[in-house]
């Protein structure tokens, strides 16, 4: 099986190349079908690899395929190598699986778009890059995928680039991600100088053997955190993700909810032994960043009116949960939540896309309502997604969130409290969204009339259910959101399937919470989590459905705590002045030194040049005089 690993990223790459060359001829929906088939067949290869690994004993579940020697420079030897181990295959499974569904969905969503083939070309390139990221055997291959997904994210956010806001959002995402890329590069340099290789296997082995000094490991861990903060949209680098909603909705679902934004979590899990070798405060920093982001983004989500912005801030918040898990040493819980989140958040995004599609590109939730009647499948699946993210048992999100909170409690009770408040807010704002969109009274008649007056739609402006290519993925994802929690159930040792599966990757670093108060009372914590989720849902229904209280939606929250404008003010004002000063110093001092050398040489040569009179007989006289002088010198010195 190992020699077929190359097929996994190669199939989407082939799809990309085919559409690149034949895109116009394939047209619509041909290009979409090619892209979907490429991704789906990649999923089949991943599944085959999964079963292959499953059939092996635990310690042999690590296949490595060296495709070619990539960078042989001195002591730096980097292979283009792919690895299939429990973590990378778990990632690849849900990446290719969800990507296939979203590709299928996009055939319906992008119907009639003039750049239809190009969209699928980018999607396939993205899947290729993402697979390189998760299956890379060393940091450099991962970095290749890391940059690839960043570039595809940029292409796809600004896909409708004739819209000013979309072009700006794409640039913002690209520039913000660059800060994270810097962290990743420094982490690579540190790892190479400490271990002399970039291979995950060797680095993690060295970390487990204690061959990496704690200071170095801390440095690597913090730089990886910077990298992960950029890609996974954590404080203080989260602000590109809400703007990324300018892209088409399948992109939001695929890149900005399910796959790319989880790559930070993946990277930290991949390097778990290094994090374990670092000073303990390094993981505390990760946990604090995660908890702070989770709470911060959840408060903002409460006051958003754009259907996609709510989900965007919700994504940031849920990613914060995963960072909290990693900081608490709960790597399995982080991966667990990453997978269940991919299921239900992709479902919610695709559902919102279906709503937007059915509402003729209306995104304001204040103009929706009562849509469950006209869009029954979308409404039903969206409600399942809502129950999953709100933490209602037995849906997937409940189990994974509870696992994280359990470890957080064992690690630090203050962070657990922050997590609980976030869970409350999550239930609250998601209920608010569901009520505003699918229940209550229909507020879309005015908007529909306006659309009808323009006469730009043949459906007379009425909302309508989406075609089967869009609803089928919704149904599949809804089913996964219901049963996804079954991967890791807390009942007994034998129901911890994901933990057993990931054990070879994270065994040393995973926190052991047996015997702590939290572990002994985990059922009480579970009940408390259910109560908190119910309280959030009940409060939201009271406010938005029954009208018992006025909604609390201060503008400071709608503006995201004004963090965005603060960053603009700082970077645009003092930041810009500082950059200008650096640029001036470069022009004045560095360039000045170079130009000054040139000027000195020029003026000196101006003096010497005067001796070249162009007067041939003059030269002859000088040669003659020189000869006489040399002769005279020899004669006077005495001929020896």
């Amino acid at each position, binding site marked *: 099986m190992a020699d077929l690993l190359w097929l996994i990223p190669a199939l989407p790459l082939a799809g990309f190349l085919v559409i690149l060359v034949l895109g116009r001829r394939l047209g619509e929906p041909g290009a979409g079908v090619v892209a979907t088939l490429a991704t789906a067949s990649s999923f089949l290869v991943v599944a085959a690899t999964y079963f292959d690994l499953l059939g092996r004993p635990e310690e042999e579940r690590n296949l490595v395929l060296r495709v070619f020697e990539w960078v042989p420079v001195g002591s730096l030897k980097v292979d283009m190598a792919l690895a299939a181990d429990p973590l990378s295959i778990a990632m690849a499974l849900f990446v290719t699986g969800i990507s296939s569904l979203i590709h299928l969905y996009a055939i319906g969503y992008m119907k009639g778009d003039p750049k239809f083939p190009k969209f699928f070309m980018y999607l396939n390139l993205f899947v290729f890059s993402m697979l390189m990221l998760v299956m890379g055997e060393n940091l450099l291959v991962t970095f290749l995928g890391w940059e690839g997904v960043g570039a595809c994210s940029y292409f796809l956010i600004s896909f409708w680039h004739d819209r000013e806001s979309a072009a700006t959002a794409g640039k913002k995402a690209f520039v913000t991600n660059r800060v994270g890329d810097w962290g990743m590069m420094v982490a690579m340099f540190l790892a190479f100088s400490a271990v002399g290789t970039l291979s995950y296997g060797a680095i993690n082995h060295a970390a487990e053997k204690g061959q990496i000094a704690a200071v170095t490991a801390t440095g690597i861990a913090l730089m990886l955190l910077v990298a992960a903060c950029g890609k996974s949209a954590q404080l203080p680098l989260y602000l590109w993700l809400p703007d990324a909603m300018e892209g088409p909705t399948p992109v939001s679902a695929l890149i900005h909810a399910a796959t790319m934004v989880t790559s930070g979590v993946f990277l930290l899990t991949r390097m778990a032994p290094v994090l374990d070798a670092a000073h303990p405060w390094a993981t505390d920093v990760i946990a604090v960043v995660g908890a702070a982001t989770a709470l911060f983004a959840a408060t903002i989500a409460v006051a958003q009116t754009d259907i996609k912005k709510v989900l965007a801030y919700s994504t940031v918040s849920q990613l914060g949960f995963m960072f909290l898990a990693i900081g608490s040493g709960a790597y399995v819980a982080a991966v667990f939540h990453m997978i269940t989140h991919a299921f239900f958040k992709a479902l919610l995004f695709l559902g919102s896309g279906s709503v937007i599609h059915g509402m003729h590109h209306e995104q304001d939730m204040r103009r929706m309502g009562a849509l469950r009647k006209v869009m029954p499948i979308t409404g039903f699946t969206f409600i399942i997604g809502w129950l999953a993210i709100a933490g209602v048992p037995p849906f997937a999100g409940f189990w994974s969130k509870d696992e994280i909170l359990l470890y957080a409690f064992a690690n630090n009770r203050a962070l657990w409290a922050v997590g609980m408040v976030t869970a409350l807010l999550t239930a609250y704002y998601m209920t608010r969204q569901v009520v505003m969109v699918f229940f209550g009274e229909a507020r879309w008649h005015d908007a529909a009339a306006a659309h009808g007056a323009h006469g730009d739609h043949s459906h007379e402006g009425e909302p309508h259910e989406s075609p089967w290519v869009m609803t089928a993925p919704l149904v599949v994802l809804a089913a996964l959101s219901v049963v996804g929690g079954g991967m890791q159930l807390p009942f007994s040792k034998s129901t911890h399937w994901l933990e057993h599966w990931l054990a070879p990757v994270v065994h040393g670093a995973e926190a052991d919470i047996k015997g702590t108060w939290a572990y002994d009372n985990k059922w009480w914590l579970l009940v408390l989590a259910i109560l908190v989720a119910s309280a959030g849902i009940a409060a939201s229904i009271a406010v938005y459905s029954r009208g018992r209280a006025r909604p609390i939606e201060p503008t400071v929250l709608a503006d995201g705590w004004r963090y965005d404008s603060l960053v603009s003010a700082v970077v645009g004002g003092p930041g810009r002045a500082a950059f200008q000063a650096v640029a001036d110093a470069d022009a004045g001092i560095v360039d000045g030194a170079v130009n000054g050398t040139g000027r000195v040489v020029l003026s000196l040569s101006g003096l010497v040049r*005067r001796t*070249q009179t*162009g007067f041939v*007989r003059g030269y002859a006289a000088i040669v*003659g005089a020189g000869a006489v002088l040399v002769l005279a010198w020899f004669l006077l010195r005495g001929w020896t």
Partner: protein
Amino acid sequence: MIAAVVPTTTWYLVLAAVLFGIGTLGVMVRRNPLVMFMSIELMLNAVNLSFVALASRLGDINGQVVVFFVLVVAAAEVVVGLGIIVSIMRRRASVTADDLADLRG
């Protein structure tokens, strides 16, 4: 009475010095490039003469060998030099070396 005057080496050396002096003077005072060229040839041959004279006096064949080298170099130099002079002559009607000062600093 005129005895058989046997020319000594000194005579040859004096002649060589005179020829060399005439050549040097020619290069410095004449403006016609062709004449300057001839003067240089004169200087070269003055040196050749001293080489041969001293070789005969000291009984050392090396002096005569060097003369051949000088002749070869002189021939090559004539080819290059005349080529330059001819191509200059083609461009300009009358030429003095002093006019060719385009490369002055």
